[in-house]
């Protein structure tokens, strides 16, 4: 089956002599071999972070939420900032796997696996915050609508926090199922190459995948159905998270623009985190041929788009605050620049809006170091966005008598740093046991969208000169393409 794709489309797989077997071999290197030094260093650091998280959370459980820096005025700070930040990061996975699948964006095939894994781990981190920020986490069960003997005491369906419970748990379970379904053919591949106990384990995990036409057919159907189910979730989850704020009375929270603004922000931060991870994974695991400059640039474009949407949302907020004439609203937005937390406001607007505007330049988009740096800046900026929305709004609201400052304690910091450790521990473990790139899906692209197929077309001379030149120009940005080979074609 060799369905050619137009030459003017950029290749999604680069490199010569790529075969199905080579793809499998390349991608399964980390899964089938002992880890290298880089992995061990990363894992040591990450698991130290995870231990820190365990200690800080245990400390909180033992002594109470008072070990955080919260006070009577600022009831949420690093906890919900961290929660929203992680949920936001968890948005890219579903967007890539579901929405891009429905839009037939084949470039997603190389990055969807890691992005989905990242989603799941980010949502896990977010969920830990949901529980650990409670004053009485052992009563967390009360937030579920369970039958009980208290004269049928239900949860408060008016409360956005209850919507959150449903939204997050739905999102987590659908993401998990989607991710796992996608993994089945790849697990079967590992199974087929493994021996002994590993074979048994992967055999169970592969759910008896036999590679028959029927299996593939069902797989495709299920993927589509799940994509259909997951797509609304991309919009709904962060919409609901934003309603935690939007439905309240708090100036700076009580804003109708929050749902679209939060969704854009979530995709923004999610892609930034995917970028952060993929650029490292690509280098360390040698996936340059599968995650190409095209992928990097595409993601940068999405970051630029969503970042600009977020920028427009910021401007809208300011305009509405001015236009509303509400003195509390106006003060809150002014306070972001002239209040004691002006530096946080600057981090938020500077990192998220100003810095991402650099991506209008192609040279920035295709520069790996700059892209990675900007992705980190976006991650930082989005953390500050939530910090500004939560803490800077709360610390000075209606009655000046209650105005207060928030100072984090070592526990606040440790829980947050630790949650990053948990995230990376999970991610690094994932790299060891499951393929970081969806092999089966990448193989689909080999005969159509790979550099070697396109080169064949060029060599066969079926391509018009103008188109060939265009194609070659596009290839210049690729760091994984031997540019010299094209000089004489």
């Amino acid at each position, binding site marked *: 089956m060799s369905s050619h794709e137009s030459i003017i489309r950029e290749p999604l797989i680069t490199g010569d002599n790529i075969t199905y077997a080579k793809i499998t071999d390349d991608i399964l290197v980390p899964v089938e071999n002992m880890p290298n030094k880089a992995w061990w260093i990363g894992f040591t650091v990450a698991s130290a972070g995870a231990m820190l998280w365990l200690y800080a959370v245990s400390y909180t459980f033992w*002594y*109470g*939420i*008072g070990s955080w*820096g*919260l*006070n*009577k*005025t600022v*009831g*949420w700070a690093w906890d919900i900032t961290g929660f929203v930040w992680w949920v936001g990061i968890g948005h890219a996975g579903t967007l890539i796997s579901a929405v891009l699948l429905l839009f037939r964006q084949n470039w997603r095939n190389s990055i969807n696996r890691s992005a989905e894994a990242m989603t799941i781990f980010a949502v896990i981190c977010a969920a830990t915050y949901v529980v650990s*920020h*409670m*004053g*009485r*986490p052992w*009563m*967390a069960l*009360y*937030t579920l609508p369970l039958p009980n003997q208290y004269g049928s*005491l*239900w*949860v*408060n369906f*008016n*409360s*956005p*926090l*209850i919507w959150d*419970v449903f939204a997050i748990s739905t999102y987590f379970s659908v993401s998990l199922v989607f991710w796992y379904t996608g993994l089945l053919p790849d697990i079967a591949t590992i199974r087929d190459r493994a021996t002994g106990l590993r074979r048994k384990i992967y055999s169970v995990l592969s759910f008896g995948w036999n590679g028959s036409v029927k299996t593939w057919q069902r797989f495709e159907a299920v993927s589509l159905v799940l994509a259909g189910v997951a797509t609304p979730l991309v919009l709904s989850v962060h919409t609901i998270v934003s309603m*935690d704020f939007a*439905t*309240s*009375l*708090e100036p700076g929270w009580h804003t109708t623009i929050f749902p679209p603004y939060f969704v854009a922000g979530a995709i923004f931060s999610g892609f930034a985190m995917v970028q952060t991870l993929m650029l490292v994974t690509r280098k360390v695991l040698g996936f340059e041929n599968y995650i190409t400059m095209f992928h990097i640039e595409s993601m940068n474009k999405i970051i630029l788009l969503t970042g600009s949407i977020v920028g427009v949302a910021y401007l809208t907020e300011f305009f509405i605050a001015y236009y509303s004439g509400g*003195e*509390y609203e106006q*003060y809150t937005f002014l306070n972001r620049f002239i209040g004691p937390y002006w530096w946080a406001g600057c981090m938020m607007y500077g990192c998220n809006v100003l810095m991402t505007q650099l991506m209008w330049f192609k040279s920035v988009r295709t520069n790996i170091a700059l892209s990675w740096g900007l992705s980190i800046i976006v991650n930082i900026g989005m953390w500050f966005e939530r910090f500004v929305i939560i803490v800077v709004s*709360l610390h*000075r*609201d*209606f*009655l*000046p*008598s*209650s*105005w*207060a*400052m928030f*100072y984090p304690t070592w526990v606040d910091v440790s829980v947050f740093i630790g949650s990053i450790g948990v995230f990376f521990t999970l991610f690094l473990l994932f790299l060891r046991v499951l393929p970081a790139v969806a092999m089966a899906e990448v193989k689909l692209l080999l005969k159509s969208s790979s550099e070697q197929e396109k080169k064949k077309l060029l060599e066969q001379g079926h391509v018009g000169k103008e188109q060939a030149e265009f194609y070659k120009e596009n290839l210049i940005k690729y760091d994984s393409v031997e540019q010299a080979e094209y000089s004489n074609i």
Partner: protein
Amino acid sequence: MESNKKYWKGLEELNNSPEFVEMNKSEFAEPLPIEEILSGAGLMAKTPRRDFLKALGFGVGAVTLAACQKVPVHKSIPYLIKPEEVTPGVANYYTSSYNGQSILVKTREGRPIKIEGNPDDLIGRGAIDAPGQTSVLDLYDISRLQNPLLNKDESSWDMIDGFVTKELAAIAAGGKKIRIVSSTVHSPSTQAVIAAFTAKYPTTKLINYDPISYTGIIQANQNSFGKAVLPHYHFEKADVIVSFGADFLGTWISPVEFMRQWVTNRNNASLENKKMSRHIQFEAGMSLTGTNADTRVPIKPSEEGLALVNLYNAISGTALPGSKPLSNKAAANSIALAAKELTAAKGRALVVCGSNDVAMQVLTNAINSLLGSYGTTIDLDNPYFKYAGNDAEFVEFVNEMKRGEIDAVFFLDSNPAYDYFNAKDFTQALAKVRLKVSFSDRSDETSSLCQVIATNHNYLEAWGDSNAFAGYYTIVQPAINPVYNSRQAEQSFLIWANNPVKDYYAFVRNNWETNLLPKVGLSGQGGWETLLQKGLIKTADVPATTYTFNKDLSGIAQSIINHSNQLAANGNTIELQVYPTINMGEGKRANNPWLQELPDSVSKVTWDNYAAISPTYAEKLGIKEGNVLKVTSGNHTVELPVLIQPGQAQQTISVALGYGRTSSGKVGTGVGKNAFPFLTFKNGTFQGSAQATISATGDVYNLAQTQTHHSVEGRNIIRETSFNKYLKDPSSANGRHESEHKTYTLWPEYNRPEYNWVMAIDLNSCTGCGACVAACNVENNVPVVGRDEVRRRREMHWIRIDRYYSFKEGNESVTEEKEINKLDNMDNVSVVYQPMLCQHCDHAPCETVCPVLATVHSSEGLNHMAYNRCVGTRYCANNCPYKVRRFNWFNYWNDSRFDNYLNNEHTQLVLNPDVTTRFRGVMEKCTMCIQRIQGGKLKAKLDQRNLKDGEIKTACQQTCPTNAIIFGNVNDPDSEVAKLLKSERTYYVLEELNVQPGIGYQVKVRNVNETLA
């Protein structure tokens, strides 16, 4: 005879063979294979299955046994024979008195748990201040001594009595002096006891010693009118009040009574009669009274005398010798204005002066005499007895000790080693005294210097009485058996004097039946029982007569001017003023955590005293809030953190007394710095002002304030108007435009068929004294969290009093921080207080966001909090626009880091059993005293009648000296609250949010003359 028998365990031992000797050296017969095990082979060896099972079995068995330890058993013993008057769950109230005020002591199952004002009390009319409210905790203070001490060892009363009587006998034989040093004794029975003691030991003399003294007034009245008394002031009869540094609403003589009097010309009823008094305050530090004045003029302590002289000149139309105009233009203008207003209000005017200087008080008397105040606003014929201390007498007593003339001294409710200005002098002199006895209940600064600490009862364990002012006698009766092995001081005196009546109860009763009850026509058992039920008697007042001042003032004026010149700061010095605070007073109650955590009314600082400096002066010196200053005056130096205090006079600092106890108990020791050594003894009295030098140490100390932003930022949460505007339009400034706007709501409306509990708070009546906060803490078991947690802004108070400063520039009021920072003159401060508590909104924003329905609305209009359901997301607190919800950050009743009162098994006895203590991780807030509401409804139901308006009072309302808080059922159109809420002055805080708060506030009215002051 020593036994020669020898027992042996075996033949080997008997023979003592070499093998046995060798073997006997080691503990076990066979050497243990320790080396083998540790060398590796043992560790590597495979564990046989049997060994594993053995180890497992032993392990499980050991763990099981260890786990079998009994759960601690708390024994609660039911009443097998129920005491007649105690019904579990039903409170008993006993009359008693605190500090001369008649009170009701609420006891539950035999434990006093709450102090409430006696509605018949002539001082507070049911109100009582914060120290009174919190005094119940002193009963359970774990720092109290459990037994009397003799030479620092725990002892018995027999030994104490033996020692003291032997010593006294020897002293009596020697004929040297015996002194009883006490804070003013105004109890008729105690006076009788001391008289009996003096009869037995004739060299005895009682020295009334008040560390915060009113000798100046008493002496001045002696000089002016021949009556050495502290007069009874009548602020309710005064239309114009001018005060020179007298904090009569906060700490001066009888603040609860004065607040009640003062507010009668300023409250809603008065305003509706188109009447409001005018109150002008001249003072250096910002006092509670100053914050409530219509016009407040900051003057330095050195200007106070000159201001008085100028006022006298302006009123009398003469010029006293040595007088000169005030260099302070604003003060000079205000003095002229005050003189005009006072003269216009002759007979309805009152000038008070807080100074303890005799000359100043004489001049004040002269002014009052010109204004015709005697017989109207000042009553010299029915004087106050609460303070009779004579400073010179105490100083002479120290000299007597130094000269070795005194052989015995008894300290009753006094602690000069802490609160005498020259404590070192006192301590050294005291060492020369042969017998030193203290009746303190703890080992404090003075009692630790005494051979005997004859631990006195807490007043809730004691019999007694008091006579606060002429004709007003109140009884002190015990509400509990003595908790520790203490004995009433009076009883000790009776025993040591070998009085025929040694039981103090019999003595008190006898004294009343013979001397006091007949005055009101009571007698016998019936009379005594009536007294115990009523708690007080009042004989008819002597008619107040007019007094005219006709002494020569030239010497007085000269003395005042001289004194002022001594005080006046030059370029290098600054004028220091020390002052008592409402909470700490003389510092006797420093070990009370409730009081320590009660924010200072003005500064909102807890757990510390500080050096208050005006913002402009601080800026000039380059000092910032929290900088630590070294303050030196006389021989005393302390390091104090700076508090920037708007309204503080330039080039002055104020430091609160009552802090810096070195030996008060677990809570109070080491809190703040002692300012008593800054007092000086001048012209025969203790004086609170002196010159001082300050220098920054470079350290920074973070004061624990409950409010850190002090301006209202132009927000209309505070609404105020002037009296003139109010007269023109009573609804001016209430800011309500109900008719102009249509309101919409998302929420369904619910009926409140029976009751709709609401509250009205009059900002014009509220003085910000903080009694309500204290009462709420006691009533609702509110945790004390300590200084560090207050710094983290985590105090738990359910009701707080917000205090905002605004500044006047021309006729404009400046309330925004960034504008305030640009002001050059920050002396024109206006202050407003706003009690803030859960508003019980009908559309409560907290309720909609709680995920688990832990906070819900009742059909009586209350916002409930179900602690057991709360999971602690804190969303409700975030969404509360009033920020009145309080989160239990820690487990305050079971966490040794918060050892204030909740955490201790003994102090826990003070808890109100009708209110649950809250576990860590749950939210809490004002319930409008739901336990009282339920109790009131139950009582009405049992009596088969309807609830009466005013029958249920919230704790804050009940104790408010000015009745600024009114609670009730708005469904009843005749209820007081319903009527008040219909007042034109009513507005609701943040009502534009449509949360429909249940607490209506009434606009603050200031009687200011816009054009003149």
